[in-house]
């Protein structure tokens, strides 16, 4: 399915005239690789007899859900998302000591922010919390 969609997209690429073509058209190489993936996938479908993996535990589902939550919250502020995700993850994984939760929720994101902002001169995207620093 993925290969079919990707192949269709590759047929939409501009083509260059033969005089400007440097050996191959832009769509040739991706189509070659997609063809290889399709052939190998068919081989796997026929020959691969490995058992299906065990069901994912609820903790894994929770972690995946938290990742989605992180993506949404980081639209408001990257570090708000990081702090909330880290705190929620540590609690979802069974940590109950409030000092440990505070460490990953507050101390680490703040430390990482100032480390990258001041030492590595990285400018983070503006948001609810980062605006407090950037003004």
């Amino acid at each position, binding site marked *: 399915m993925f290969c079919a969609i990707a192949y269709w997209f590759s047929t939409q690429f501009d083509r*260059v005239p033969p005089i400007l073509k440097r050996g191959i058209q832009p769509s040739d190489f991706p189509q070659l*690789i997609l063809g290889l993936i399709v052939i190998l996938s068919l081989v796997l479908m026929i020959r691969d007899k490995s058992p299906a993996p065990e069901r994912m535990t609820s903790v894994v589902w929770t972690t995946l859900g938290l990742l989605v939550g992180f993506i949404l919250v980081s639209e408001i502020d*990257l570090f708000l998302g990081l702090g909330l995700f880290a705190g929620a993850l540590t609690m979802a994984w069974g940590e109950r000591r409030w000092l440990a939760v505070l460490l990953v929720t507050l101390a680490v994101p703040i430390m990482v922010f100032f480390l990258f902002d001041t030492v590595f001169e990285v400018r983070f*995207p503006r948001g609810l919390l980062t605006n407090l620093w950037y003004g």
Partner: protein
Amino acid sequence: MDAALNGLLALADFNILVLIVAATLGGVLVGALPGLNATTGVALLLPFTITMDPIPAIAMLTAIYCAATFAGAITAILINTPGTSASATTCLDGYPLAQRGEAGKALGMAAVSSTIGGIISVVCLMAAAPLMARAAYNFAPPEYFALTVFGLSMLATIGDGSPVKNVVSGAFGVFLSTVGVDLLTSIERFTFDVRELTEGIGFVPVMIGVFGISELLVQADNLHVKRKQVIMKSIRLPSRADYKKVWRTILRSSGIGTFIGILPAEGATVASMIGYNEAKRWSKTPEEFGKGSLEGIAGSEAANNSATGGAMVPTLALGIPGSPTAAVILAGLMIHGLRPGPTMFTEQADFAFAIFWSMLLVNVLFFFIGLYGAKVFARVTLIPIQILWPIVFTFSIVGAYALEQSMLDVWIAIGSGIIGFFMRRYGFSVVPLAIGLILGGMLETRLGQSMVMLDEKWWLMATRPLTLFFFVLTFLALFGPAIWGQLFKQRSPLESTGE
């Protein structure tokens, strides 16, 4: 000779030395923490090195590589959990020794054999890499194309998963490398009008995703695992009698490890397994293996550390990564504007030798850190993963953002992490994906150049001896094990029936 001296002088800077020592300590920490390994450590450090000069940046990455490979032995011996997969065989004899109250002796042997193995491999690297580069200096695009195909074909044998799945994963990585503007024709491909995608999918966010974030999801499944540390009195170096017993094993495993490391894509894990097996095969007391044999520890540790130097030979001389971690270092070299390949030893020879010397230094450094700091690092292994992994996630995300200062890279890291997690669940290794992404661009460019050179008659590649040689190697790498397996089955009917 001048380059060797200049390389050494380039390292004689207080700041660079401090950074190398810090990276070595960080590498030991990364290697000692279960779940983290050299590849993840190097991928996480990569964004921190972007603003540095190339020599300290790459020296730090290689320091993490060497030190983390050694440090896997600490957890293998003390908590029966290999810090890195390359130390899995060290558990077999290290932990039984630790249970007998001889953890110190086991760690001492691991430190000595790792250091000797590491130093031997770096010496081989210094000699072999320029020679290999000289041999490859006259390669034309078809030879490079065939060599890159061979490097990718070696991905089939990575890990213990299905070779077909490994090749699918590698091909997917190569496919991802086609996103962005085509370098040969300047036509946009799979960019969907997203400006940030015109330069392609970045190596760093994908590396952070597939090695770091996917591991976070794997760890979510391992919360029930309890780690219990064996009490360690003190670390003592092996006695003269111990050395007498193991010196041949150390030398043999160092040779094996260096050779395995030089093979494209094969890394420390394969080296340690073969090193351990050969140590057992040649031992006068094979019955002690698995019950606390010092030869077992020496065989495994000398091999996995010597693979680090070996893996850097094709990485620097040909631009083909010798191991998964070397692939991330290769990405680091490219990000810093360096061109790994034969020209590195003519145009950037001082830099190459500075890296060699720094690797030599790291091998000596982790000997002392291993001996005197193992007790401290052993405690670090008991950090609850409930605290460790949220911290790793924070660094991963900020690291993914920092390089291009783009939120798109954060989404790519998370997407790669989730894809990587499901790939691992269904038995697909993520290492070929990462290497495929790095080599994909190179592969396409060289194919295009070859087509121009051969007047679009691709079949003429087979008329070039070296190109044909690499294609034959590729065929053997892909189908050799299956053919060999069929032949072996036919000749040993008793074995195939299980008798």
